């Protein structure tokens, strides 16, 4: 009797994990989708479910900082979602293109003309041409500036005039000196921010397409020297990103920043007291991109055809317009960029149509290659920049240290 009881309870345990198929009707394939809050519009996902009635879309919102770690773990385990949204770090996975569906095998080449070229190329393997993801939004950069402070400093205030005068970073720094002398206000919040933005405007970063290290090359050197010059002229407010910068922006202690389009929302939330005083114009030194996300299909997916079809639908020009209107994702589809619906005058910027500036910027971003290890090297150089800015480290020593650390990191990568 006891034995029977034991057998019964064990088999109950075992079977509690069995899944019984629903008794009635044939089951629909379930397509799982991973995204984070505001990386896709929830409304658009709901519409996708209507557009694909023969499958069940299981959209899972995964929180914050763990997103990438969780994706990486899923890839290691070989059991991830079918569709996955990726932030701008998607390029790191080009080195592991075999983990993703090559979208060119599923007719994505016909879509290429519909999207910004540099955005498309950012997730394409330069060797094999494999495309691991499709573009969602982009982060074209521009110059945000305080028109009232510019006027006080005797600088032009209208976006066109500002752009005409501030063509290069050298012009921008000159204006910064004038700003400091006449009003005492810092033109820059830190030197790490301009350093990053100069890099984002250039096509060369820390690695060439064949994987050679070029972090000591012209592009990085130019960005470095520009940032160091800002430091030496005393134009940086030496602020830590986050609450400090927000407080300074709201308090009128910083007159401008070159930033991506998605920073507009952050600026409006951080500095509500300055509404109406800001303007946007094309950035000194050229157009660039900072951030923006992608969406791809994992090779482990059991329903690749359906998953690819849904992915294409989610980033189609129409869907991109909805993404923009709902959660402010700046489009990567050329047709969407032309939409009149983007061109609402914005009272925060004195009723300027800021989308015009960002659309122009987005069309002129130079194609670029990041490489698997971009994040690591960005951190190495950034850390040294912070030391120059806040702890007055000797810039030449900082450059040497950055190169030394980079070499050490390279020795480990090549293993």
């Amino acid at each position: 009797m006891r034995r029977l009881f034991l057998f019964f309870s064990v088999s109950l345990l075992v079977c509690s994990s069995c899944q019984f198929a629903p008794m009635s009707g044939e089951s629909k394939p379930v397509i799982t989708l991973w995204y984070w809050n505001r990386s896709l519009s929830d409304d658009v996902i709901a519409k996708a479910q209507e557009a694909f009635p023969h499958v069940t879309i299981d959209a899972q919102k995964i929180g914050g900082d763990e997103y990438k770690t969780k994706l990486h773990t899923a890839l290691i385990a070989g059991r991830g979602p079918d569709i996955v949204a990726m932030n701008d770090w998607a390029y790191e996975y080009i080195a592991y293109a075999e983990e993703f569906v090559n979208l060119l095998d599923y007719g994505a080449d016909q879509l290429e003309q519909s999207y910004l070229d540099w955005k498309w190329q950012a997730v394409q393997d330069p060797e094999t041409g494999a495309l691991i993801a499709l573009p969602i939004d982009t982060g074209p950069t521009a110059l945000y500036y305080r028109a009232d402070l510019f006027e006080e400093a005797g600088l032009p205030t209208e976006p066109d005039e500002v752009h005409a005068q501030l063509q290069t970073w050298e012009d921008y720094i000159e204006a910064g000196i004038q700003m400091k002398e006449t009003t005492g206000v810092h033109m820059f919040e830190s030197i790490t921010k301009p350093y990053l933005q100069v890099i984002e405007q250039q096509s060369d970063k820390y690695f060439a397409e064949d994987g050679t290290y070029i972090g000591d090359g012209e592009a990085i050197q130019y960005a470095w020297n520009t940032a160091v010059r800002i430091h030496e002229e005393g134009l940086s407010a030496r602020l830590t990103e986050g609450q400090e910068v927000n407080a300074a922006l709201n308090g009128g202690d910083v007159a401008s920043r070159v930033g991506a389009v998605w920073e507009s929302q952050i600026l409006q939330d951080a500095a509500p007291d300055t509404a109406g005083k800001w303007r946007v114009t094309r950035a000194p030194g050229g157009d660039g991109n900072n951030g923006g996300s992608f969406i791809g299909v994992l090779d482990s997916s059991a329903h690749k055809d359906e998953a690819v079809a849904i992915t294409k639908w989610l980033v189609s020009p129409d869907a991109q317009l909805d993404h923009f209107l709902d959660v402010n994702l700046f489009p990567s589809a050329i047709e969407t960029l032309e939409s009149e619906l983007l061109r609402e005058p914005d009272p925060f910027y004195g009723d300027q149509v800021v989308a015009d500036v960002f659309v122009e910027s987005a069309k002129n971003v130079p194609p670029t290659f990041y490489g698997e290890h971009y994040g690591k090297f960005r951190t190495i150089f950034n850390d040294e920049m912070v030391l120059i800015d806040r702890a007055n480290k000797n810039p030449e020593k900082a450059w040497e240290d950055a190169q030394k650390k980079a070499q050490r990191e390279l020795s480990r990568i090549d293993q």
Partner: protein
Amino acid sequence: MLRQHKPSLWAEIWKKRTLYLFISPFFLLFAVFGVFPIFYSLYLSFHSWSGLGDKTFVGLSQFQYLLGDAEFWQAVGNTFAIWFLSSIPMLFFALVIAFLLNLPSLKGRSTYQTMFFITNVTSIVAVAIIFETIFSNQYGLMNYLLSLIGITPLEWLNSGFLVKVVIASMVVWRFVGYNAIIYLAGLQNIPKTLYEAAIIDGANKTQIFFRITIPLLRPIILFTVIMTTIGSMQIFTEPQILLGNSGGVGGAGMTMTLYMYNEGFLNNQFGYASAVSWAMFIIIALFSLINWKLVQKA
């Protein structure tokens, strides 16, 4: 000769199989989530692996790299500095608070106990955000208070030393009540008769404290010192929320655990992160041992 037949271990276990079945969940979970990762990390520490792609066996070169890794040693130094700055004032204050809570004349003791303990259960992320606003370089509450009494504001988060003070103060704030409650339990275990006898013998308050309270509290102090040591050696969330993954200006707030996390989960150097974690294990074990010896001797 009569040889007594000793039943084998397995036979004994089989006889009590139902009991073992009931306690097995813990051991199974511990094997899967405890023992296996420990040995797997040892295995990984001899490899170079980004998580994806192949593991390549590199022998001891991860440890070799570690020995020459200035950032790791800086993290070790930082961790010890934070430990020193936090544990000594914390245990001192905890003892004082426990002593006050133990005064016979104190009314509403449990209210105070709850008050002191509540800091320990506050979300650490919230704590870090509050401390960030208090110690912010240019707009912080602390600098405002300093300016009121005419002291020039300090750049708390830019200075390598001050940043450690800020992190240590977070640790003190969070754990002082916790340790006080533990001390209080110890104090209440000391028999009243000892104090009474001492008073009859004419001992003064200081003598009673150092000759009776402290010696009888020694096992409790030893416990808190070891727990504090192990806890501080693994400090992670405070610097991460306060300063970001980089550990702040010049990595002044980079701790061992934060460094391991960065290498493993940001840089995808899983082999190296495993090596770092084993180095941490050795350091913590040695340091705890030293502490144990010292406190026992004192």
